[in-house]
């Protein structure tokens, strides 16, 4: 998991954009930092040679050391790394170069057969300077061009030789006007701007400069120059890319922090808008997916991380609202279902980025076995939607913070909409109840705004108390279980506080042994049949002098009084309320992280999109 970017301008960059190319590439990399931030580097073509600068550390930390702003030119590639092979060190940072320093490469992904290639190249006299898989690429290209291959022929050979996932941007010093690229599995897009062309791992990298985009497919390779774009596919031959140009409707503003100290807080606050956009567009797109799911014998839902918690909510909805045989599983465990998938099954694959490799592998396996696949993603035309039978999208806009917030609530909204439509077709639920649910759904965006506005200040105060804790429990029953699991994950990933979630009825079967005075226990209490049972669990925690926090439906002051800290939530049916209950837990995690002096946008050891198995 890394971010790569390349830009080639029509003439000197400082003439074209009024800033040196080093500064431009830094800007692009900052927008890709969510993909990894172990190390950073760039290569710039400058007066006949390729200058490479790289270092470990976050971009803004090493900005001075690398001196981005000192370099001008017309062509540059850059890289921000999330280490997979080789430690995050200066010499393992990209770009990597060949022996002569004439070919520079940045890479995202993993090359599986790099060890054998490395042996072969070493035997041919090539000297390796890093422990990375990437370094085989420049040496291999050096070997090929040395044998008289043109750059494009060398790429053709490269695609045939390399195994694994890779997106590459390559500069040859003897072809100073072109950036060559290759894509297999790992994402890569071309951005077509005025007087400059970009290649990048993701659209936000260059969104400030252009919104005209070509999304590349597996096996695509070619080059970009200010006057020409050439794309060829290893299977299909020359690609007519003009038909694939899309205009993305994100504005550059949407990827800036807009006055919020962290992307995560901004994205929490954007949830009303994200829900509004998602609900508006889902109505138009959901038809096909509804038909597929309604005809299913069995439904599987798969995802990783936060999306998996959305899958669990989806499972609950499909079970209880539609009476379907639905099961969710964590995507990386897909192999155990290999013999289970068969024709008539439907797999719902949920991924914010649409590129999550584990989920993608599960999708491929299920399709191979004859199951139909419905994808839920936030990034249009990404790998999982492309490989699925039907795709439905959340319209949350780009999410930069590593911890998912607005995409989670948008996923819940999509799944809720899907489930109500399916229930309508199957006749599994009282139409009056479905109508009421639909009315509640239309009020969700507004209510989400109200929840944030009413509780942000109080939760900021609560976070001061949670700051020094080392553990927490998140408990619920019914639909409250996955919501609690999501709450616990948020606290773990950005506040580094160990948190566990489980169905509240399980307390007395073990976990309650951990509870002592002041142990934080957070309850999600819905206005449903589990309410009284759950309050029993609250009492059981209070008896052990735990510090209890409750999300409780409005209109039950007696319930609220029984918590040390209560957050009153709008009183809706649990299905619709679940979307809103996620929000206070996001704020709890965010403000606890801030109170502990951490950076919630960049949790240690984590990357936004996981594209390695």
């Amino acid at each position, binding site marked *: 998991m890394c971010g790569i970017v390349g830009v080639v301008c029509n003439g000197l960059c400082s003439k074209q954009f009024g800033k040196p190319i080093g500064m431009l590439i830094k800007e692009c990399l900052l927008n890709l930092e969510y993909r990894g931030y172990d190390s950073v580097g760039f290569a710039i073509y400058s007066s006949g040679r390729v200058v490479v600068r790289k270092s470990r550390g976050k971009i803004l930390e090493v900005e001075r050391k690398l001196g981005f702003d000192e370099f001008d030119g017309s062509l540059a590639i850059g890289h921000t790394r999330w280490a997979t092979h080789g430690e995050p060190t200066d010499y393992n940072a990209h770009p990597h170069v060949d022996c002569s320093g004439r070919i520079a490469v940045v890479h995202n992904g993993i090359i599986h057969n790099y060890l054998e290639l490395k042996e072969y190249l070493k035997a041919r006299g090539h000297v390796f300077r890093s422990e990375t898989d990437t370094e085989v690429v420049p040496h291999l290209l050096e070997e090929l061009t040395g044998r008289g291959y043109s750059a494009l022929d060398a790429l053709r050979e490269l695609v045939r030789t390399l195994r694994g996932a890779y997106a590459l941007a390559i500069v040859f010093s003897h072809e100073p006007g072109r950036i060559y690229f290759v894509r297999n599995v790992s994402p890569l897009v071309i951005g077509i701007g005025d007087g400059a062309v970009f290649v990048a791992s993701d659209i936000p990298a260059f969104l400030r400069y252009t919104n005209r985009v070509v999304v590349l497919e597996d096996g695509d390779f070619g080059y970009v120059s200010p006057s020409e774009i050439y794309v060829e596919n290893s299977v299909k031959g020359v690609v007519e890319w003009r038909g694939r140009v899309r205009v993305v409707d994100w504005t550059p503003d949407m990827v800036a*922090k*807009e*006055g*919020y*100290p*962290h992307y995560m*807080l*901004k994205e929490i*606050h*954007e949830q*009303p*808008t994200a829900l509004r956009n998602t609900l508006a567009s889902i109505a138009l797109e959901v038809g096909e997916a509804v038909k597929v799911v309604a005809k299913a014998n069995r439904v599987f839902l798969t995802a990783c991380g936060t999306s998996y918690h959305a899958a669990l909510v989806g499972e609950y909805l499909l079970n209880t609202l539609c009476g379907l045989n639905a099961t969710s599983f964590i995507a990386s465990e897909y192999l155990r279902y290999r013999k289970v998938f068969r024709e008539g099954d439907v797999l719902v694959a949920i991924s914010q980025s649409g590129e999550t490799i584990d989920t993608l592998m599960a999708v491929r396996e299920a399709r191979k076995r004859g199951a139909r696949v419905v994808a839920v993603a936030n990034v249009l035309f990404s790998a999982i939607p492309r490989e699925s039978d039907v795709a439905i999208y959340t319209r949350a806009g780009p999410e930069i913070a590593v911890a998912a917030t607005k995409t989670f609530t948008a996923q819940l909204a999509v799944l809720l909409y899907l489930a109500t439509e399916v229930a309508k077709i199957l006749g599994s639920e009282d139409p009056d109840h479905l109508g009421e649910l639909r009315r509640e759904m239309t009020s969700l965006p507004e209510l989400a*705004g*109200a929840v944030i*506005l*009413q*509780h*942000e*200040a*109080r939760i*900021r*105060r609560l976070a*001061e*108390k949670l700051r*020094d804790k080392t553990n927490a429990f998140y408990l619920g029953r019914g639909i409250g279980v996955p919501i609690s699991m999501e709450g616990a994950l948020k606290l773990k990933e950005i506040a580094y506080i160990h948190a566990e979630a489980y169905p509240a009825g399980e307390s007395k079967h073990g976990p309650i042994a951990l509870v002592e*005075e*002041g142990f934080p226990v957070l309850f999600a209490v819905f206005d449903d049949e589990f309410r009284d049972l759950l309050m029993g669990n609250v009492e059981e925690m209070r008896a052990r*002098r735990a*510090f209890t926090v409750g999300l409780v439906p409005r209109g039950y002051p007696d319930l609220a009084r029984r918590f040390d800290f209560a957050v009153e939530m709008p009183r809706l049916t649990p299905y619709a309320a679940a979307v809103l209950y996620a929000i206070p837990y996001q704020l709890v995690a*965010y*403000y606890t992280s*801030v109170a502990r002096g951490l950076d919630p946008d960049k949790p240690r050891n984590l990357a936004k999109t996981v594209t390695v198995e």
Partner: protein
Amino acid sequence: MVGVRRVPVVVLAGGVGERIRVLTGGRPKALLSLAGRYLVEYVLDNIAELGFTEVYLVVGNPRDFEDVAARYGRRLRVELLQQSRPEIEGAVESVRGAVGGDFLLVYGDVVASVDMYRELVDLLARGEYGVILVPEEEVEQYTVARMRDSTTVEEFSRGVETPGAVGYYAVGGAYLLPGEFVDLVEAYGSFTEALNAANRKYRLRPCIWSGWWVDVEYPWDLLRATLYILHKLDRAIVSSSARVAHTSTIDGVVVIDEGAEVDHHAVIKGPAYIGRNCYIGSHTLIRSYVSLEGDNVVGSYSEVVWSSVQRGATIGSRSYIGFSVVGEGSTVEPGVITLNVVPEQVKVSRPVRMERRGREYVKVGAVIGRGARVKAYTVLKPCEVVE
């Protein structure tokens, strides 16, 4: 960032602070002392760090601030403006003529991390206007904003009608405004109405600040500010001209300034600041978050915890001073005890809350006014004010 240097910053430091008058005695609030420096210096430091160079300091009496202005030398060009009329409206009107175009408006009595102001610098680069908002409880006493959505303020107002109302953000004391704002204040005669007018015309982008932030309004706000400022210290420093007895114990991050003297068997646990020419008597215990601002005497066998002791105050032997603010030049005679756990039924605005051994305590000690004298062996109740 190129434009930053040219945009002037207006710092409002004219406020006397009615709620804190017992400590200031009518002198400006911004000149209260915190870890050896004036409150307003923390604001000016942040401004300098962001690369601004031109500052208009609006004050009641320019002579009070002359040494502050001089201290920044060439790093910041600090110009003193005399406030023509009282209240914030008067302060804003005083910058007429000095400020033409866009400007940053900053309160001189708000202590916050430099990152808070950075949000406005980002807006400046994009040519927008904005205001810092802080999610705070008890918004009654602040200028507040109600949000329409995440990017728009619906309305600014002075406090809220009903205590404990929710859905409001406190205005964080920093704005990026168009030059016309000065005219709007004059036209409407009210600061908040001018904000509303500016918001309608230019759209003030709300910047939500989630980090630490203290608006010094009540005496015990100084305690929270002390906490944050002392937390920023990263190592112990003992000045070469300080005298520290070899039997005393210095534990943690403690700054002992020039000419201070720590007598035998005294114990100082950091973070703490011992100002210039202070004297700590033998066997005295100074615990975390204590700031002795300078020329203080703490007699022997005393204990001081989380307190702000302003310049020249004396604390007699065998006293216990906790969660208290001791005013400039005051005298606490020997044996004075400050009680500081606020009973649950008593409501205090913005007290210090802390958790020890699983229980939450609301703590406020005594406020000993500027130049006051506390008789020997007095027991002061929580929140008691001695004038």
